[in-house]
């Protein structure tokens, strides 16, 4: 298998799907002539032209709405938000229209649309531009929410998202775009099903559920813990809604403990949802309280030393694993 960067994997997914289906088109700020704010859409304009790669004004509510309308009449738009922070001005379009039209039309009208873009903190972009948007969108029945951690998952899941007849919120990561990882060779098509967790590391002592940027923090922490004799099993849900807990439950039955690590704030959201489900589905197997390592419950500070403290750190992950393992 070859290695690709996360942004290249996403780009390939869009190329392949636009090639396969001429109803697929990309719309957003700087996606065309500038080749994408984060170069995810590089080369798409040259290949598919201005009719299918559309630069928009800075008007998220407008182009999100145009995309939803296009989806309702049979096209398959990909809407890129320059970051998910800017989706908040299009919140009403996503929640009240994209997520509702199928139900309100009694199933007559489907909205096969993908909203995608980078999510979460980058580096010193301060409180207004560091949101982890997963809790906002996972709250909404009618939306799929996907947050891939690796290039392979990014490609396979974006392809599935584009082919899905439901509106999909696709959360990428500015700090993940440069991450390299294995992706199936050219010509080998891989569709990763929406709503399926992935076992990222096997272990016997503690289950860690994580996704997005902290995925890499956790893998590094797991190596350090392994050096101390604590073998962690790491599970990446990949899709946050619908949430697949089967693998997690199976793992917790083996390890008897679990730490959930995520970037979003601790109040509610998929992290709290996972803990809620595990305590019910694996109650008789728990040897310790379920713990979470989260982004701290504050607006993101600008100062780098403080930002590093707010995001989940290796140290906090290691401490939590040791706490639930009753190990000093």
């Amino acid at each position, binding site marked *: 298998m070859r290695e690709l960067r996360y942004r290249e994997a996403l780009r390939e997914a869009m190329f392949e799907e636009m090639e396969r289906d001429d109803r697929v088109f990309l719309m957003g700020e700087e996606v065309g002539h500038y080749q994408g704010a984060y170069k995810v859409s590089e080369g798409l304009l040259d290949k598919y032209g201005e009719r299918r790669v559309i630069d928009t004004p800075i008007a998220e509510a407008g182009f999100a709405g145009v995309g939803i309308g296009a989806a309702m009449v049979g096209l398959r738009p990909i809407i890129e938000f320059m970051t998910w922070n800017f989706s908040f001005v299009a919140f009403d379009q996503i929640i009240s229209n994209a997520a509702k039209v199928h139900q309100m039309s009694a199933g007559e009208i489907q909205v096969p649309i993908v909203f995608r873009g980078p999510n979460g903190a980058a580096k010193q972009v301060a409180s207004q531009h560091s949101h982890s948007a997963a809790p906002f969108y996972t709250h909404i029945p009618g939306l799929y929410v996907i947050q891939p951690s690796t290039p392979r998952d990014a490609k396979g899941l974006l392809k599935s998202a584009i082919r899905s007849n439901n509106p999909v919120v696709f959360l990428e990561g500015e700090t993940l775009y440069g991450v390299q990882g294995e992706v199936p060779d050219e010509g080998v098509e891989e569709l990763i099903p929406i709503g399926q967790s992935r076992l990222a590391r096997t272990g016997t002592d503690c289950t860690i559920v994580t996704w997005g940027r902290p995925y890499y923090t956790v893998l590094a922490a797991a190596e350090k813990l392994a050096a101390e004799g604590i073998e962690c099993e790491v599970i990446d849900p990949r899709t946050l809604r619908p949430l697949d807990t089967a693998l997690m439950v199976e793992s917790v039955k083996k390890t008897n403990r679990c730490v959930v690590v995520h970037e979003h704030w601790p109040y509610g959201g998929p992290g709290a949802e996972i803990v809620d489900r595990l305590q019910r589905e694996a109650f*008789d*197997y*728990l*040897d*310790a309280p379920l713990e979470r390592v989260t982004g701290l419950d504050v607006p993101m500070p600008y100062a780098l030393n403080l930002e590093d403290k707010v995001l989940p750190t290796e140290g906090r992950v290691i401490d939590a694993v040791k706490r639930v393992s009753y190990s000093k």
Partner: protein
Amino acid sequence: MAKIIGLPKLSPTMEEGTLVAWVKKEGDEVDVDDLLAEVETDKATMEFRSFDRGVLLKILVPEGETLEPDVPVAIIGKAGEDISDLLAQVAETVAGSGSEAVTETEAGTAPVSAAVPVSASVPASVSAPVSESVPEAVTTPGGRILSSPLVRRLARERSIDLSVVRGSGPQGRIVKRDVDSYDASSVGFAAVGAERLPPRVAKASSMRRTIARRLTESKQTVPHYYLTIDVDIAPLAEARQAINAELEVAGKKVSLNDLIIKAAAVALRRVPEVNASWMGKEIHFHQVVDISIAVAVDEGLMTPVLRDADRKGVAQIADEVRELAGRARDKQLTPEEMTNGTFSISNLGMFGIEEFTAVINPPEGAILAVGTIRNEPVVEDGAIVPGRRMRFTMSCDHRIIDGATGAKFMAAFKRIVESPLNMLI
């Protein structure tokens, strides 16, 4: 010297009580056993009586307040005494640890202790002596064993008594590795070098303390003696079958124990000297037959009273006993339902116990201990035949029931059991 009075635990399951009304006012004289206040518990509104003599110097909580046991509610002392130190102590307690109220004002003196009648015949207001101090070597609040859900499942599966496993988790929580090492250490010789654990210290519940106090009192002050009789139980078992056949239409059933209660009640009518209580300078010969039934409950036992057992049919006895026992197990009995029995019956037959001697439940004069049914050969008219036998042992208070009187009762009881038609006479 003035002392802080805490809210007493007025029922075995009382976790909090509402101070409904103060009967005494600040400045009132208080004598031992005077009604201080009324407290509503999970069961009923109970009397909160004083264990001390003096003047009610200060009321610390207003009416309507809901409190945990032992929370300071008043200060009693001599008129005009300076109580500023005690008030400061109370303020500190309230500000400090919340429910962990001050329970001791003088070394070794719990201001108020459990006043719970677990069993019959003790008026609700009678309580432990003032000086009874309760060792508070608490491990977990309420004696609860802290353990993880996994450990509770493993304990069920492996039949491990968690009370003997020492927990190594936070607050002594028993976690998986503790059960695993306990498993290893319980495999006899394999456990070389296994840790020898000290006893697990659990707080005695209020019910347990009351049982301890009352039974010690009984065994120390009541001169017990015991009469055992062996009875052919086949006729009563046959009677039971016949009765149950009749009751089948109504969907009811009586147990052998219900018939034994009835037989004992009839026998008490025939030998009424046994249905009596030693009351110090008087003997009370009871004119009713109220039978206390010993019921095992979680962490202890209770003795609900079946009133007028002599006048009730066995179907009604069966209904009432089942209902009382159920509520005893749910700790739903009112104090009235547990007091003023005249005779007790305790049955351990279901555990295969052949015979045993029970401790009298004062001021009742006697208790009948019921064993299991034994199928064994008996000699009848010079031939060995299969027999169904049962042994009954009555513990008697010799102050009121002499040997011959007790024996007379046992003989009457045997006659009734061996010929149940006797009950109709």
